[in-house]
Structure formats: C-alpha cells, structure tokens
C-alpha cells in the first residue's frame, strides 16, 4: 500500500517516547508510518492492509513480538513482508529465536538514527530485499 507514492512501515512499539522517536526518524525520510502499541493493534491493522516493512519491539504488553512474527509467517499474505526486530533483548539466544520465527534483521537498542535508517533501507531496497542477510547488516 503506497500513500502518495510513499512506502508504508508498520511500527509496533508500546513505549510512547520510543514510538514517537522512531516515527520521527522514519517520517523524516519520507516513509508513511503507521504506529500501533501491541499485538492486537497490529493484527487488526494487518487484516486491512499490507505494509512494506514491519518494525517490531519484542517486549509488548500482552503477546510478545515473537508471536506476531509467527502469526505473520503463518499468513499467506504477510509471509514475505520483511520484519525488523528492534529490541534491547539482544543475547545470541534472543536473536536466534527471532530469526527462527521469521524476523529478517535484529537491531539492538539503543541505536542511532543512521543505523535505524540503514537497516530499514537495506530491508526495503537491498540487493536481496526479499531475503536480507542479517549478517551483512551486523557486519557494518
């Protein structure tokens, strides 16, 4: 779904200050950002439309980000939408779990504006946009 030629990013983050900060960064680069605070809000929005990318916090009020990944990967329509997990849980195990449930990349909090944009743009436009390599991102 493109609005005025802008690509849409669904942002799932329950903490308002962080949500606003990420939204501001993405909007400044001319993305159309839809923000929601939890799993159910995301499901409801995804039922109506398909984003170009989902930015997802793992720690959400009720169901976790892992569950949203599982839901999306089990849904025919949403299977190919890239997912960027943004979380402060960043042990190798957390990252492996995220990858196992279908996340395409993992951005550790705290992050810089440049890093967020690089992850987002790589996932959207990278040479392997459909299956972006986590490693290529983390190496830089």
């Amino acid at each position, binding site marked *: 779904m493109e609005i005025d030629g802008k690509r849409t990013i669904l942002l799932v983050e329950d903490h308002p200050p962080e949500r606003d900060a990420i939204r501001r960064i993405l909007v400044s680069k001319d993305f159309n950002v839809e923000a929601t605070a939890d799993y159910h809000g995301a499901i409801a929005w995804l039922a109506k439309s398909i984003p170009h990318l989902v930015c997802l916090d793992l*720690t959400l009020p009720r169901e976790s980000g892992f569950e949203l990944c599982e839901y999306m990967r089990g849904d025919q329509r949403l299977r190919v939408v890239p997912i960027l997990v943004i979380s402060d849980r960043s*042990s*190798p195990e957390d990252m492996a779990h995220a990858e196992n449930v279908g996340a395409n990349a993992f951005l550790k909090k705290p992050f810089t504006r440049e890093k967020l944009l690089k992850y987002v743009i790589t996932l959207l436009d990278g040479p392997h946009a459909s299956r972006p390599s986590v*490693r290529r991102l983390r190496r830089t």
Partner: protein
Amino acid sequence: MTRQTAQNLNLLSDCAILVGASAIACSLPGQPHWHWMVFLGMSAGSMLLWTLGGRLLRHYDVWNGRGIAGDVALTALLLSSVLIAMGVLRWFVPAYAAGSHLARFALLAVPAILWLRLMTSWLVHREQPVQPVLIMGIGPLGRHTGLGIHEQQDHRRVIGYLGFSDEPSHDRLPAELMGSANDLESVLKKEVVGEVFIAGNGDSQRAEMQDAIRVLERFGIPFALPACGFRFGRARPEHESVIADGYIHYVSVRHKPVQLAIKRLIDIAASATALFFLSPIMIAVALTVKLSSRGPTLFKQVRVGRHARPFNMLKFRSMVVNAEELKAKLIARNEQSGPVFKMTRDPRITPVGRFIRKYSIDELPQLINVLRGEMSLVGPRPPVPSEVSKYEAWQRRRLSVRPGLTCVWQVSGRNEISFDEWMYLDMQYIDHWSLAQDLQLILKTVPVVLSGRGAS
C-alpha cells in the same frame, strides 16, 4: 600499544631512571664537587647489573605470563639485588663514592622503577593474549554467538565452527567450518582452544551436546552453554551480570586467583632465597661439571610449560654432549612404560653426572626457571614436546597449570610407578590443589632428595 612496545618503553625508561637517579644522587647540594667519576660508575654499573639481571630473569619478555603481583615482586627483587651488588662494588672504589650517594640513588630509583613496572604490567595484562574460541552449532544461535564475539572486539577470536549432525551447512558463518560435532576431540588435539561455546538445542541436540561436554571436561577446556534455551518475551534474569552474554560459563579446574598469586609470591621469595644460599654449591658444581668433561655447564632442554608454551628448562649437564643422539640407540632398553624414557644404568651419564643426579643437584638451576615465572616450586613435571604429542585427551589437562620442581609423583616413591599412575597423580594434584598441600609436598621432597632415594 602492543606488549612489545610497552616492554621496550619500559626498558628504555628504566635505563633513563637509573642514569637520572645517578646524576641527581651525585649533584645534590651538600656535595663539595660534582663527582663525574662517581656518576659514570654509578650509572654504567647500575645499567649493566640491571640489564644482566633482567636478561637472566626474562624481565622484559613479552609473554612472561607472570601476573601483576609476580611481576612487581620480581622487579623489587631485581632492584634489591642490583643495589646490594652496587653496595659491594662500592668497597672497591672508596675514594669518591660515599654511602650517601647510594642511599640517595636507591631512594630515587626504587620507587620510580617499581611504579613504572606496575603501570606497564597493568597495561600489558589489560591487553590479554588472544583467546581462541570454538563454536559448536552452525544454526542461528551459533552464528549470532560468533557475530556477537566478533562485534565485541575484545581478546577473543572465533577460530572455527563445528556443526551438529542435524544442521545443514551454510556459508554465512563468521569463521571457518572445521567439521562436525564428532570431530571435537581431534580438533582440540590440533588447535589451541581457550573456550568452546556449545550453541546447541537442549532438546534435539542433547546427546551430541552431552558428548561434547564429556570431551571438554576430559581436556579441561572451559566451555559455555546457552543460559536458558527457552524463549522469553518479557522476563529477564534478575541478576543479568551472571549471564551477560547469554551463556553460562563452566571451568573444569577451579579458579583460586588469590591463592595462585600467593603461590607465585612464595615461589619468587623461596627461589631467590634458595639461589642466594645455594650459590656457593652451585658455583662449585658448575666448575666441576665444566672441568670434568667436554661441553657446556648448563643443559637447556625445551619443555612444554603452562598452556602448552615451550620454554628452556635449565639443568647442570650430567650427560655426555651427544646424549640425545645416543638415546635413539638405547630406546629399546626403556624401563618406563608410556612415552617417557628412563633407564637405571644409562651409559650416557658422566661420573659427576651420576652424583649430582643422585642428590638432584642437577635440577638446581631450575630455581632460575621458577624466578622467571616459567615454573613453580610445586607442580607437575614439565614434559618434553614428544611426550605431549603422545598424550591422551585427559592427560593434556596437565598443561593447564605452571609446571614445577616437585609434585606428588616425586615424593611417592619416584621412578617405581607406571606412566599412567604418574599422570593420574598429577591430575589429582591439579584438581585438588591447595597452598597447604604445596607446603606439605615441599617438606616431603626434602628427605627424598637428601637421601638420594629413587633418583637415577
């Protein structure tokens, strides 16, 4: 700054301090004239003694592995030896040099050099040697573990991966794939590995993980297991520092850092004292060895030290010069089981050699190895490289501690036990090591050595 640069700077600054202290000691007010003769003698003499002593003790060696406490204690020892030597030399040139010169020199040089060494030692130890890490598991967990270590840019370096049998191989790993989980033992025999991360799944890869743990415990190599295995959306450990990197780390040999530091200090004090009091005997023996048969006084043999680092072990020469070549001819008459060569009436031993071996006098130069930090008073005897290459997995654990002059085996009845029993005793020592036991072993060694019992 690399270790080498730090050590070179340390040497240069130490020399500068010695010259500076000499200059100030000779030119302070209260002196009638500037005694340039005294200054020259003092600075040249102290630098000469300092570099000689430093060389003997491997003071500026890059990888001395001594620890900060040991390093500083050794510096203090070196300083006092140099000062005592200078004090003795002063008696030969009494005309200009007054005792106050030397006292002032000591007052200036000692704290400066000690402080500098403390700083260098601290710098060098912060920059720990590279620790090679092996990762088992090439799934997402193994890959993220490797990338995480890579990102940290600390002293650890991932040298390779081993895959579990149910994992498809792929090319996105940050290090080389060295084989499968079954190859762990052969890889550990070939490569130096500091720690193994077992990045497996406790359900589907349980048996292989358990096998790996068994092998690692036998080798005595530290390993890490994933902290939980479960997926958490919210919960986190109450004490995060325990599993900071998502792993629980295990060691097979218990760490006793304080006792180890004390052990090192005892080693330095005891070996320095022993060298001082035994020096008349040692000089006499050295002369006898030199005069009684052709060849050098000291016999340097490459032995394998802690963490498999080779060093030159010192002995008074007790054999003829071409002993190693003769050994090949005598190997059929070996009387010790396993990879060690022992023989009761070894024809390669010289008459003087037979005497100094009987009372273990030939081992005395190893006190210098102890001072240098390559050996300890008590510890498993350092093996020769060919022995190590024949070790079985569990025997390699001997190399996890500093080798010593005496150990359980030496006081047990010495040569009359089999190689396997000997290894077993050494392993017992390593696993149940304590300062009290060390002291007991030293006390038990004295009568065994004095009686010449069991030595050959």
